[in-house]
């Protein structure tokens, strides 16, 4: 990556480099990042053991219900959420809306999610994320999309799933697509890599890197439809590094209990007896939607490319 600023040497502190951007995501591994719309929600999330909160105006299921244009959150609300908790605060910018991203960086948010959950501002171009000191997380449905975002400077990936549905099926599909794509490249002969780069529409140097290391160069969380502790553990067993949970917590009948249980299930993802224990007596999960019967125009995952 020619744009990596980490290479600088010396005793002067160096900020905004690739290692500190990707590094914060490394520190979030094994954890749950929760969507919150108020400082009170943020406190509940922190109390429950969230590793970070995502500040947004409405949780995805409400955005889905209300329709209209969904934008970056109200600035005062983001400030209040930053003041309310000690853990990192993320916030969403519209795809391609680099000015929303500039504003979020100036507010001191710790990570920006260039998110398909908001209404895209640009249908052709994502944000040039190399221009920022704040790191970005971006959604992806498959390996090619993940690598295009990393090529643009994303320091963390999350699979898109289908936000606000309470249905894990798309999250599973996208995680399998990314993991399968990685396994495929790892097993290739070197002369096959350029054709694969062409096929995926992905930067060649990143394809070479995956061929060499057998893994994505950045952390990959799962997102979009995780509604229960078992969903969270499923995504971890499928190979994600951690979970974003949106509507799943604050649209359940008992957000505190759901938040704690999903945190525990993410840590003890391979211990069914723990998942069973934390799943007992939780009350009702958020209502779910059948993604297969939704009209194409209502799908969020197809926003961005």
């Amino acid at each position, binding site marked *: 990556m020619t744009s990596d600023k980490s290479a600088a040497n010396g005793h*002067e*502190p160096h900020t905004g*480099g690739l290692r500190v951007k990707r590094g914060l995501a*490394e*520190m979030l591994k094994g954890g749950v990042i929760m969507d919150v719309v108020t400082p009170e929600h943020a406190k509940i999330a922190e109390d429950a053991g969230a590793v970070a909160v995502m500040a947004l105006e409405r949780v995805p299921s409400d955005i889905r219900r209300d329709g209209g244009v969904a934008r970056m959150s109200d600035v005062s609300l983001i400030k209040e959420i930053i003041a309310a908790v000690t*853990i*990192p605060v993320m916030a969403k910018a519209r795809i391609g809306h680099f000015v929303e991203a500039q504003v979020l960086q100036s507010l001191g948010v710790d990570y920006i999610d260039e998110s398909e959950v908001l209404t895209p501002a640009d249908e052709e171009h994502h944000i040039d994320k190399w221009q920022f000191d704040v790191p970005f997380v971006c959604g992806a449905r498959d390996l090619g999309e993940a690598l295009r975002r990393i090529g643009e400077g994303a320091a963390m990936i999350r699979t898109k799933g289908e936000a606000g549905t309470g249905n894990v099926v798309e999250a599973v599909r996208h995680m399998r697509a990314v993991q399968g794509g990685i396994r495929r490249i790892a097993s290739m002969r070197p002369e096959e890599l350029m054709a694969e780069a062409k096929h995926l529409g992905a930067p060649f140097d990143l394809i070479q890197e995956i061929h060499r290391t057998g893994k994505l160069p950045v952390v990959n969380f799962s997102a979009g439809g995780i509604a229960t502790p078992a969903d969270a553990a499923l995504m971890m067993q499928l190979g994600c590094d951690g979970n974003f949970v949106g509507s799943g917590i604050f649209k359940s009948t008992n957000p505190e209990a759901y938040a704690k249980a999903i945190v525990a299930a993410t840590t003890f993802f391979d211990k069914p007896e723990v998942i069973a224990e934390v799943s007992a007596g939780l009350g009702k999960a958020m209502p779910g939607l059948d993604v297969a019967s939704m009209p194409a125009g209502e799908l969020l995952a197809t926003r961005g490319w």
Partner: protein
Amino acid sequence: MTILRVGVLALQGDVREHLTALRGCGAEAASVRTPAELESVDALVLPGGESTTMSRLLQVFDLEMPLRERLAGGMPTLSTCAGLILMSREVLDGRPDQIALGVLDISVRRNGYGRQVESFEADIPVALLGVAPFRAIFIRAPRIEHAGPDAEVVASFGGNPVAIAQGPHLGLCFHPEMTDDPRLHQLFLERAAAALEVSAA
């Protein structure tokens, strides 16, 4: 001679990087999430991550008391960033209910170097490592505001301690596991092995 078996507290955080670094030094390393797994290791790494999350999971999954007992029994530790916060005597700007194990004689301020956009890397000389500086990566790092008489300061940056040695323990504000430089993990293994009178690898 027995070989040192090192655990990495794996409730949350950059566990994999520590396991890789330890194994790269030839150590036997395993993740630790349960009291039984804790019992099976000779020394422990407390990794980077979110200290509030680890603190809550330590309490809920009945690891806090076994951990305190092992520490009281002299189990050597390497703690980085969030791990350092857990190991400290006093936490400033934290949550009132978060665990301070009280082993390292230091007072730390959470996120004392600022938010993520202030996260940085710098070359820092570390006593005990010789002349070549260590490339230290600070991510929403804790700042050591005060080090008591039991804590030996082995590196400082901008007037504050950033690395502490205390008996068999090493505590760091930064992340050696995110670099390819194995010297601090090696130092930890050597000191732990010496304290326990076993072989490091």
